[in-house]
């Protein structure tokens, strides 16, 4: 069992990181009713910001987080603007538009930052191993677990306690009723997409040393967070947390065990296929419109 301690802890780090990204995706879907296939690209904004700005000092990391979060938040708001003419056209039109935006933005990112995976530098004082019950574990990842857990807790508090959170939950339950209360659907969608983008950018800036910053980052993150969102039940934050940790563990324990490593990828997508088959109507509710 001791052999799996480090992969298990690493799975939590990976899972919490995925949760921060996927929470944005699930909020955008549940509240904004937007299927945002450019979500991985917004993560890449943060990842590239970290690769280019973070140079080993705390200040540079803070700046990278700020720039990445702001850029991805703006990106989310911009997507909301682009989606305005598609109101009432359903999820397929949204998916096509956001996917197109993801392709164009991905191409621009590659043109700006090159085809290479970029190297990441983490703050010097975290760039060393720490002792974890007799095992060595990278200090940065331990710090990431703490920070990501704090972000997750803050997210829960905001959604369940604040006034904005009340609107968010009300919108998930009954979009029309919230509109009747005098809250513009456009405002709701734009602020949720901007917030979701900011979460993706934040996760990108913090998680790039683990997930990477390169041309494949956006697709990888989009795919994993789609799995998380589907497994967690569309629109459910708590469900996303459980699913994200599960996906993280499959990605680490699954790889650490030689017998499991061949089937780990299938477990991931097999579970998603099962969830979709069981709740197919839940994913794309055709009768509903924005």
């Amino acid at each position, binding site marked *: 069992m001791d*052999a*799996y301690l*480090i*992969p298990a802890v*690493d799975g939590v780090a*990976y899972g919490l990181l995925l949760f921060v990204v996927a929470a944005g995706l699930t909020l955008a879907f549940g509240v904004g009713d937007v299927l945002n296939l450019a979500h991985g690209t917004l993560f890449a904004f943060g990842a590239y910001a970290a690769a280019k700005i973070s140079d080993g000092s705390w200040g540079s990391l803070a700046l990278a987080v700020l720039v990445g979060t702001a850029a991805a938040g703006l990106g989310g708001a911009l997507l909301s603007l682009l989606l305005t003419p598609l109101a009432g056209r359903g999820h397929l039109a949204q998916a096509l538009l956001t996917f197109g935006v993801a392709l164009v933005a991905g191409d621009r990112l590659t043109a700006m930052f090159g*085809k*290479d*995976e*970029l*190297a990441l530098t983490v703050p010097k004082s975290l*760039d*060393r*191993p720490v002792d974890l019950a007799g*095992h*060595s*574990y*990278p*200090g940065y990842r331990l710090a990431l677990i703490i920070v990501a857990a704090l972000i997750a807790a803050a997210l829960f508090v905001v959604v369940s306690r604040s006034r904005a959170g009340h609107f968010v939950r009300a919108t998930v339950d009954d979009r029309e009723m919230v509109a009747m209360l005098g809250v513009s659907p456009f405002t709701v969608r734009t602020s949720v997409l901007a917030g979701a983008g900011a979460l993706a950018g934040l996760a990108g800036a913090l998680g790039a040393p*683990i*997930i*990477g910053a*390169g041309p*494949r980052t956006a697709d*990888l993150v989009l795919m994993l967070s789609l799995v998380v969102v589907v497994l967690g039940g569309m629109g459910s934050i708590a469900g996303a947390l459980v699913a994200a940790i599960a996906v993280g563990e499959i*990605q*680490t*324990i*699954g*790889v*650490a*065990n*030689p017998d499991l490593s061949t089937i780990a990828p299938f477990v991931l997508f097999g579970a998603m296929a099962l969830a979709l088959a069981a709740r197919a109507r839940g994913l794309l509710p055709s009768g509903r419109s924005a």
Partner: protein
Amino acid sequence: MFLPRRLVSIALATGLVLAGAGCAKDDDKSGSAGAASTLKIGFLGSLSGTYQAVGTDLKNGFELYLKMHDGKLGGHPIDLKIGDEGDGAQTAVPAATKLVKEEGVIAMTGIVGGGSVAAVAPLLAQAKIPLIGSNGRPELKDLNGVWTTSFMSSDPGQSIAQYIKDKVNGPVFAIGPDYQGGYDEVGGFTTEFAKIGGQLANPGGKTLWTPFPQTTNFLPFFSQIKSSGAKAVYTFYAGKAAIDFVKQYKQSDIKDLPLYGAFLTEGSVLQAEGDAAKDVFTTCNYSPDLDNEENRKFVAAWRQQFPDATPTTYAVASYDAAAVLDRAIAAAGSNVTAETINEQVAKLGQISSPRGQWQFGKNHAPVQKWYLRQVRADGRALANTLVQDLATVGQ
């Protein structure tokens, strides 16, 4: 409206190609006539894309040789025509076609990727132009006219197997990236290691392949190595994967296991790895601190030209490609053609190089000595430092 314009451009393009072909013929004639006529040599390398660093090293190595020899090879002034190989065969073939058909080069050098070599070789064979390649070298059916100054992918692993068997007291774990280059590099080690009675720590004796290029988190693999009871690790990674591997290795549970590898710390990745690379052992056919006359001259000239970069094995292989062409063209005497250059390369024998003496083997790749290096602090910077000689490998 559009049709006539397109016709005009087609006519223009055809005219240009014909004119280019005409030039090439003229050059061939002049090349064989006068002793000091200018020769066109084609250089193909990745000057953009993933392998830009390697391609640039190849170009710098070749140009440095030219600069140190007054821009001449075998007494002829050289007009070096440069093509960008890009990321692989898809971009390499058009670039090579341009060098052959439009520039009319008499010989070709460079080429980073094995896939590019495989794709360009038939084109060169058809035009009977010899390739003095300086990096990539796949298995080829027809070796006629194809020479490689670097090494075969399985050579590094083979060269260090005996040393690891003697030094490591226990089983060794083999891990590498899941693609052809990885199979060749790590396979070179495991094959030789098994032959001399070494024992792998891998379950079932099977090398662990990590998905390439998407693996950025190596920690779960390191947990596997830890529980295998290995006493050392052998691996091959390059580029970003090498940086991730080495950095995470030194913060993981197996940080105290000796790490042996090929290319793990070669070139620009070393500075990115930083202190995590300290003590890592690599096998290489070159080390900048080798003590021989040719290397002293080479390193001095390199440092003057590129004060911020350490010379790499890539640069040396390309420098040697220029040296091979230099001697072959000189030996061809008054009749320098693509064919005579190829004939003379076959007769060269020992070549003096910054890496020591080597010669072409039966497979048109070097029979050469390999060296064990360890990353140590050299002043303020980290450097691959020569430890000792390893085996001589080649066929």
